[in-house]
């Protein structure tokens, strides 16, 4: 069965090559098949021959390694020819081209495994090639198209846009007569503060160690940087400060909620999962809108309840609070899994050894939490950097990097400038990524070993429990208020002005909103399943296998998450509007955009889950002669199912709530719910917008809650055994 795999794939490819139309929108079957093309171009002949070679190698008697090498060559050349043919002919690819390329690539992968060039067999080889091709086409290629636009104007290379943008005062303003304090002075103050903090142990009489000196340098540098940022103005400064503040606040809140979730003794524990999931299922700008209604100058809380008259929430403060509300659940989702699977036996052991609570935290709990915290911080900071809805609605027009990308494209029609802003954002994310790598190092954090663990999680100390619960209650109350005003908004005539009851908004939805909502859900569902599977596959390949280009694959996949939606959107338009890969105007481009924006969550949650599973489990499985697919199916997937479910859900939800990328891609007949809500809200049809947003939120809640429960019931075995 396994040995016949090349033959099956070659058969599929040959059938597609001979029977299915090579390009879309070309009439005249059978004259439109790849086979028919073979009469006109030598490349098609090559593709056919490569497929035949695959069939022969699959069926015939062959030396394993020898045939594998030939298979690699045939598959590699064949798929390169197929891609080349698609690009060269410039007609949008059809089913024939798609399936032929796919099977040729799979053949090359199977060959890699057979020839022993990739450890783990044909499945691993094929998976690596397939994932690389997909990520290359739908993440790297569109970004390359944008970057090309940033350094090439009219076909000539130039640094003009780069220099113009980076020296612009919107980007970073270091000197201006209107600044209260010169940035240099603040930077100096920050450096002095860092120096004081770092040298305190030395003054206290301890001998300076290498680590202490490194810490000193870090503190001085960090203090100077933070001081510089505080003193300066401009998009770069605003985005960095915002991301830092929101990242730290959300991660801290997420950790607090994760601790409550696993170890609280109070009844509020049950409300954690559903409530903290609420902001995730809401488009960020809808929350921002509700925010104005509660905390604006005429907000029902600030003005109605407290009698204030303040515009303070229009500005970075409002953006920061709204982002913390929106992104804390992401940190919670990442950390909940980590905290839940902390092995209580380790803590018990430490307690038996008379560790003080402080020592327990420092030497056991903290090192176990660190990867989760780093992941959460990274995710939240990236989200904050890329979010454009809240800065746009609440930012008071203060520049941020993400809004400038958007304004450059949508307002100044300058893809070159937007690309430079995108480049800066990507660089920042790259720096975060490297920082996280460095922080985590190569330390192992295995807590799932397959060996039984008898510990029971230690409940939180009562005072801490009560304190954290108090924090949670404040957060929950704020969330309830936001949603309350949103739901109410759909039932009153004019939100904030005329509060008489009406059903008109919902009646209006029947023709204009509901079909769009269903279409959005359909496309998101189509995208979510492959996205989650591909995400897990990439996580598995990059953590469990070594191959050339491993880091490149992992990083390019993450790019699709990090790249601001607007840049990705323009990239998709630039890359897929013409030639062989033409996709604009179809539902497929929306599905692909959804898929590759959601996939990185699958990767990260898969990686976090896999990092906790001891490799000996897989080694045992392979000693029992299970191949890689069987090991995946029977050992790993059951263990990481919660992570898989999280990836799937998150991709679906992200697809249904995202707006910045798809606003460029919607086409007549394929409108999306968020784009519709935004355009209604912009034109003051707030009631209808609120009604559709409420429906969207309720729909996502109905999807999320049962699935969440399913994911929870399937807890990781060692935790279930220990924690009960």
């Amino acid at each position, binding site marked *: 069965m396994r040995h016949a795999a090349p033959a099956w794939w070659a058969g599929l490819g040959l059938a597609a090559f001979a029977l299915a139309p090579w390009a879309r929108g070309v009439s005249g079957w059978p004259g439109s098949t790849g086979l028919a093309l073979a009469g006109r171009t030598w490349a098609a002949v090559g593709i056919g021959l490569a497929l035949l070679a695959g069939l022969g190698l699959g069926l015939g008697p062959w030396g394993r390694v020898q045939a594998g090498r030939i298979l690699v060559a045939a598959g590699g050349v064949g798929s390169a020819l197929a891609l080349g043919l698609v690009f060269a002919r410039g007609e949008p690819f059809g089913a024939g081209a798609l399936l032929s390329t796919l099977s040729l690539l799979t053949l090359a992968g199977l060959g890699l495994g057979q020839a022993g060039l990739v450890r783990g067999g044909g499945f691993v080889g094929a998976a690596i090639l397939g994932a690389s091709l997909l990520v290359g086409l739908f993440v790297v290629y569109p970004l390359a198209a944008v970057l090309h636009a940033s350094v090439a104007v009219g076909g000539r290379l130039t640094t003009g846009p780069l220099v113009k943008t980076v020296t*612009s*005062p*919107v980007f970073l*303003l270091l000197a*201006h007569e*209107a*600044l*209260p304090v010169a940035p240099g002075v603040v930077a100096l103050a920050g450096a002095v503060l860092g120096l004081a903090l770092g040298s305190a142990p030395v003054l206290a009489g301890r001998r300076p160690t290498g680590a202490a000196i490194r810490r000193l340098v870090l503190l001085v540098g960090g203090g100077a940087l933070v001081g510089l940022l505080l003193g300066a*103005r*401009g998009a770069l400064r605003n985005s960095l400060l915002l991301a830092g503040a929101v990242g730290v606040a959300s991660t801290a809140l997420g950790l607090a909620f994760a601790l409550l979730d696993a170890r609280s003794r109070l009844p509020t524990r049950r409300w954690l999962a559903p409530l903290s999931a609420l902001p995730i299922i809401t488009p960020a700008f809808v929350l921002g809108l509700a925010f*104005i209604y509660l905390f*604006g*100058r*005429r907000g029902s809380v600030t003005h109605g309840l407290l009698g204030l008259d303040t*515009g303070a929430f*229009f500005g970075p403060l409002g953006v920061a609070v709204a982002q913390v509300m929106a992104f804390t659940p992401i940190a919670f989702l990442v950390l909940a899994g980590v905290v839940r699977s902390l092995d209580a036996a380790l803590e018990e052991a430490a307690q038996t050894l008379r560790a003080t609570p402080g020592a327990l935290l420092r030497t056991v709990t903290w090192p176990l939490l660190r990867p989760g915290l780093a992941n959460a911080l990274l995710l939240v900071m990236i989200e904050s950097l890329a979010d454009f809805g809240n800065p746009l609605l609440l930012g*008071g*027009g203060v*520049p941020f990097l993400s809004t400038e990308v958007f*304004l*450059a*494209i*949508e*307002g*100044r*029609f300058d893809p070159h400038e937007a690309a430079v802003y995108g480049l800066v954002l990507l660089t920042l994310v790259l720096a975060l990524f490297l920082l996280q790598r460095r922080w985590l190092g190569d330390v192992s954090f295995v807590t799932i070993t397959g060996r039984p663990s008898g510990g029971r999680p230690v409940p939180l100390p009562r005072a801490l429990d009560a304190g954290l619960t108090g924090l949670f209650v404040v957060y929950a109350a704020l969330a309830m208020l936001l949603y309350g005003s949103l739901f109410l908004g759909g039932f009153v005539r*004019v939100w*904030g*002005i*005329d509060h008489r009851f009406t059903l008109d908004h919902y009646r209006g939805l029947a023709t*204009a909103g509901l079909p769009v909502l269903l279409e959005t859900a*359909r496309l998101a*569902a*189509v995208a979510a*399943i492959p996205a989650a599977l591909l995400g897990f596959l990439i996580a598995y390949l990059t953590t469990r296998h070594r191959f050339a280009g491993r880091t490149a694959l992992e990083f390019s996949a993450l790019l699709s998450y990090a790249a601001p939606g607007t840049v990705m959107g*323009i990239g998709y*338009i*630039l890359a897929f*509007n*013409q030639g062989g890969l*033409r996709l*604009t*105007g179809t*539902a497929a481009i929306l599905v692909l955009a959804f898929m590759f924006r959601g996939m990185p969550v699958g990767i990260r949650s898969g990686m976090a889950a896999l990092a906790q599973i001891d490799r000996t489990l897989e080694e045992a499985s392979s000693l029992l002669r299970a191949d890689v697919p069987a090991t995946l199916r029977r050992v790993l997937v059951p263990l990481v199912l919660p992570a898989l479910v999280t990836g799937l859900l998150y991709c679906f939800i992200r697809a249904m709530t995202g707006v910045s990328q798809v*606003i*460029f891609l*919607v*086409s*007549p*007949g394929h*409108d999306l719910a968020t*784009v*519709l809500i935004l355009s*209604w809200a*912009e*034109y*003051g*049809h707030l009631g209808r917008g609120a009604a559709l947003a409420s429906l969207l939120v309720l729909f996502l809640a109905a999807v999320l809650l049962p699935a969440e429960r*399913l994911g929870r019931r*399937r807890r990781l075995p060692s935790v279930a055994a220990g924690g009960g």
Partner: protein
Amino acid sequence: MVTRLGASALLIVGLWAGWPTSPAAAQGRVNLLCSPDPAWCEAVKRDFNKATGIQTEFVRLSSGAALARIRAEKANPTFDVWFGGSGDSHWVAQAEGLLEFLRPKAWGELRPNLTRAVDGHYIPLYTGLHGFGVNDKLLQEKQLPVPATWKELGDPKYKGLIAMPNPNTSGTGYVMMTTIVQIYGEEPGFELLKAIHKNVAQYTRSGGDPSLLAGRGEVAVGVSFANDVVERARKAFPIRFVAPKDGTGYEIGALSLVKGAPNRANALRLIDWALEPESQKLGPQNGEVSVQSNARTPVAPDVPRFEDAKLVDYDFGKYGTPAVRDALIKRWTEQIFPIPR
């Protein structure tokens, strides 16, 4: 059990998700890129379909985004007609060769002052005054007078009480800039824009938002087109339109045929249909409460009248030139926008 349940659920979802929705035939169809109030877009879709049987689809994007979209799709346009939106973005698109100008059947019936101003560039669809949406209630609470001129908007007493659209994204914001420059000249105009900048509480992306913020009482003055203000007032927001006494700008909303339109014949039918008085009534009924371009279309009584305003002699040609437009917006973005408020 759970696995089987989950699997069947997945199967059902997969079937539903994978079911192909019938693609509309390429014949008998027209695609609109629609920039005004979405309610108007919906009404056009419904009534044009009813009148001709042609299947009509639209995507709503504000003028700036729509121009970006048409530029990006230059090689392969999805859209046939760009319906509505600020005239200068159509003007720019026309100058870049993205649109095809033609005189529709009803050209002779359109208001001559409009056709004279934009002949050769786009088809006028509607026209409206540009000025302030004022919330009297908030001003009274603050014991401030109603600002009567652009100059007064720069008075520090209005600090934190003004919303205006960002000229980078909004045609409405660009019209404000060009109006002030045309009244006072470029250098003094930019001094005034700087003074106004210091008073602004919120820059918005679209031209419709400032009047909404003023209507809700978040700010006292929202720089806006009259039609947005009147539409808010009709929806019971406490807001009214004030035409600035030192000079009032105006816009000519546009209708254009996209170059290389995939459904050209139907696009031409839609353009002719959209200029009939009967179809033009849809605008004022659906949010675009302005003067429609066909002289035979009746004007609603609450539309602010051109005769009562001191109009600036708006140079559409000059300010629709991409180079002039880019230079002005660039200057504002670099010299005024970054100043700390």
